[in-house]
């Protein structure tokens, strides 16, 4: 259990660093969605299924979609 959780936390931190480092904004949004997805798995493992559902549907799906729609109207690459 503690091994699985620490692996997930390491993955989450990697995703968070990647989201801030990537120059390609679409990749950054995908990395941020990964952080949300792993956060929702962690919420589920910590026995908070209500929060896990909200995090998975809003954080991982809808927010990423709204960011990608916004990026389509602006520039894809950071300078």
């Amino acid at each position, binding site marked *: 259990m503690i091994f699985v959780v620490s692996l997930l936390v390491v993955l989450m931190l990697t995703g968070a660093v990647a989201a801030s480092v990537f120059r390609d904004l679409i990749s950054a949004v995908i990395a941020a969605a990964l952080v949300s997805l792993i956060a929702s798995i962690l919420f589920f493992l910590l026995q908070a*299924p*209500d929060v*896990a*559902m909200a995090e998975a549907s809003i954080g991982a*799906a*809808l927010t990423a*979609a*709204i960011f990608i*729609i916004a990026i389509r109207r602006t520039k894809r690459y950071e300078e």
Partner: protein
Amino acid sequence: MRRTVAILLLIIVAVGISRSLAKIPFGAAKTKVGSHYINEGVKETGSANIVTSVVVSYRGFDTLGEVTVLFIAAIGLGAVLTNTTKKEARKIEPASLILYTGCRLLFPLILVFGSYIFVHGHLTPGGGFQGGAIIASGFLLIYLGCRERRISRVASNVAESLGGLVFVLIGLLGLVFGGYFLLNFLPKGTANTLFSAGIVPIIYIAIGFKVGSELAGIIDNLIEET
């Protein structure tokens, strides 16, 4: 110079937060209200899911505020993005056959799943906000896969307004019957059955409709503009 100052500030903030958090015992009960919800919540509200009993019954007024915040955000986005001038119908490149068929197959299943989540909010994990968000992601799928289909603006506005109206009306009915807003005036029934917990499932169904149509409307506004 600026970088040094920034790092120094960050360290100061981190030390401050960790010092103040270290004083709080982890996992220990600090107030009586939490244990009261856990021990008496099922008996007092009739809702088997304690999270729902807190969100809709004990803290129902806060939930009304939360729904209002979402409503104002959706209205503001609509006011900024909606252009009333009729655009000529653009040629939309159709999605591939696999994506089109897959999204047509999945969309009703996602709708049923979202409705299940908010109808059973007082029995199983989940509720109006989660179910509404799942329904909105189903509409997002329709926008990506079957791009020539549009949801009706009027229908989504009606669903949104009805959801808010039902919430406020039930709260006012509590004021009529027992003297305070959002009083649970319906019979509580036996816990763990579908028709239990009085007004809790009705309010959660209203929230589900409201959140689902609001989030779908936000996606509709954004996609329409691009």
